[in-house]
């Protein structure tokens, strides 16, 4: 009996001790948390959800590829996506949760309201934030850890360059802009562009983002009879439709980006000839990696990329590159690297952060821009402006730019 007991105890002790003697498992990658503060519910949730999904795909690809090495340590991303409902109060609550509770050091958010709100705690906490704002307020020398994930104001000179070469009959322009800071920003850049490219600005008309009746605005346009009207995305389908209905026959263009969905919303006939920058994920001119992203989206979610997803996917890859080049996860040093170096991008080629002339600090990612024009209800590719030419276009207009 004693012997049996002894054998049993020995076996038990062996069972407990053996795992401890086994070779230690290979060290797992460290986790780096990426916060996403996006509208996941409400009127613009279709943008927020697209950004979230694109982020998930980017992170999946990076992590499945073995993660990334920073300063000799292997890391993988962990995404924490929270709903900020596209308003500043909820964005602040999200920021507290991400920064204070989760220890996040990198946050991507959508636009001005959320970014400005998040900045109040992210900058003091040493957190890098990236968004796609429509105003200049978000990125200033006082907010060195805040960045812009894509070109916005920088796109307007590129549009001007394109139409002055391809539509030389355009001599006069009218800006139709929103009555807020984003609109002011567009007006300032467009006015500078007009001077730089020898186009006469007849006037700038403002409208509220909630406008549904553009008849008074179109009446002013018809009075002035410009060769071209430039407008932002907000309210564009209604403006286009009503302008054509009321008899405006001149050229139309996006002050920055155009949206392929306008053809369905305003009608193929109304949008014919409208030009501007667009995010190409769906033609053979799109970068191969972006075409693959588009295919994945369609397979998983039954819908292609609409807006925001492509840029967020690119931002995550560029941020990963910046971390690798910095050799540290210290956000101050990563931010310095972001401002001073170039990075391989899923958009093809390399991108860099510029925009010092407008923002006082290099903070806007200069990405390739596709110029398109609506033909028979589809956006037809016209020209690709490489990322390095974005800076050149901006430098041309800076002597005329008044903020």
């Amino acid at each position, binding site marked *: 009996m004693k012997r049996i007991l002894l054998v049993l105890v020995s076996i038990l002790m062996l069972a407990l001790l053996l795992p401890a003697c086994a070779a230690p498992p290979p060290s797992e990658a460290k986790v780096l948390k990426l916060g996403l503060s996006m509208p996941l*519910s*409400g*009127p*613009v*949730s*279709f943008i927020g959800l697209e950004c979230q999904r694109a982020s998930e795909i980017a992170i999946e690809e990076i992590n499945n590829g073995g993660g990334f090495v920073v300063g000799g340590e292997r890391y993988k991303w962990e995404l924490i996506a929270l709903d900020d409902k596209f308003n500043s109060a909820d964005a602040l609550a999200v920021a507290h949760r991400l920064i204070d509770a989760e220890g996040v050091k990198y946050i991507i958010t959508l636009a001005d309201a959320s970014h400005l709100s998040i900045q109040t705690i992210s900058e003091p906490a040493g957190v890098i934030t990236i968004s796609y704002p429509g105003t200049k307020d978000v990125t200033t020398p006082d907010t060195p850890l805040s960045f812009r994930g894509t070109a916005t104001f920088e796109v307007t000179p590129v549009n001007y360059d394109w139409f002055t070469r391809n539509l030389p009959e355009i001599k006069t322009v009218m800006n139709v802009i929103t*009555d807020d800071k984003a609109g002011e920003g567009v007006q300032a850049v467009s006015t500078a562009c007009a001077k730089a490219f020898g186009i006469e600005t007849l006037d700038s008309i*403002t*409208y*509220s983002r*909630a*406008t*549904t*009746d553009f*008849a*008074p*605005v179109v*009446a*002013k346009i*018809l*009075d002035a009879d410009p060769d071209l009207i430039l407008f932002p995305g907000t309210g564009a*389908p*209604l403006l286009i439709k009503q302008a054509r*209905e*009321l*008899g405006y026959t001149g050229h139309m263009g996006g002050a920055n980006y155009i949206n392929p*969905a306008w053809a*369905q*919303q305003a*009608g193929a006939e109304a949008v014919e000839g409208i030009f501007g920058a667009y995010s190409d994920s769906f033609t053979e001119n799109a970068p191969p990696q972006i075409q693959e992203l588009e295919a994945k989206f369609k397979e998983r979610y039954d819908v292609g990329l*609409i807006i925001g997803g492509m840029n967020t996917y690119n931002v995550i890859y560029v941020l990963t590159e910046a971390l690798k080049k910095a050799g540290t996860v210290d956000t101050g040093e990563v931010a310095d690297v972001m401002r001073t170096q170039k990075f391989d991008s899923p958009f093809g080629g390399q991108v860099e952060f510029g925009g010092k002339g407008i923002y006082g600090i290099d903070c806007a990612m200069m990405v390739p821009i596709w110029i398109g024009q609506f033909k028979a209800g589809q956006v037809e590719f016209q020209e690709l402006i490489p990322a390095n030419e974005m800076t050149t276009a901006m430098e041309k207009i800076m002597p005329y730019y008044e903020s």
Partner: protein
Amino acid sequence: MLPQLLLSGLSSGLILCLFALGLSLAFGVLHIVNFAHGAFYMLGAYGVWFGFVRFGLPYGVAVLLSVILVGLVGILCERYLFRNFRGNLRMGMVLAIALMMIMESGMVLLAGAEDQSIPSVFTGIVDLPGARLSTESMVAMAVGAALLATVAVFVQRSKQGRALRGFSQDEEGAALQGIDGGRVCTLTMFLGCGLAALAGALMGPILILSPYMGGQPLMLGFAVIVLGGMGSILGTFVGAIIIGMVQTLTAYVLDPQLAYIIVFGILILVLLIKPAGLFGHA
């Protein structure tokens, strides 16, 4: 340019009248401040989108079905929700706001948050002396005007219309006359919500659809019924035309943002001078 602006003002005024009439009926007869009225307008527009765009029904059928279905939803809301708070203005308002939130969020779940559009059915432009309007808008104006006239005749001349007016003036007196209050409430809500839905259905191909598209007409609708006089059909018509015109002309002559200041400034003036509105009774 003036004829164009007047025509645009008239067009937006007529549709606003169609919308506001339902609001006026709800308040005048049922004593409900129906903050969910904009949501019924939105449901009307989306009803046409679902019927015409998603399920391929003929446009006219989609509009008719949308109006009837939204009217029925209105009846259910009145019968099982608002009726519990008859006479309690505050609770009625809270209930209406809750309904509005539920309908808007529900539509986001059903149709998605991104904007939708209904292709134009009546394409082309109608050219008039000094002005032009899309055929779509002309049709919306014509249908709107015809419905308004029909509703006006119904309320003034028909037996049910007289019952409706009697009930709004004195519920107890109406009951003594044998008027079924429950039926009047049901009819009023069906009419009110149906009119909102029709306004939404007519504007659907003209505007861009969003689950939150009812907010702006709701604010203007309240301005119309306060200006014109709550419960007055003529007042609603006049108020809507005034507001439509003021908005369009101000936006052109001065600034689009000033249009709202002037419209609501006029509203405040009327409230101070004649609280019952232009055609309302104290």
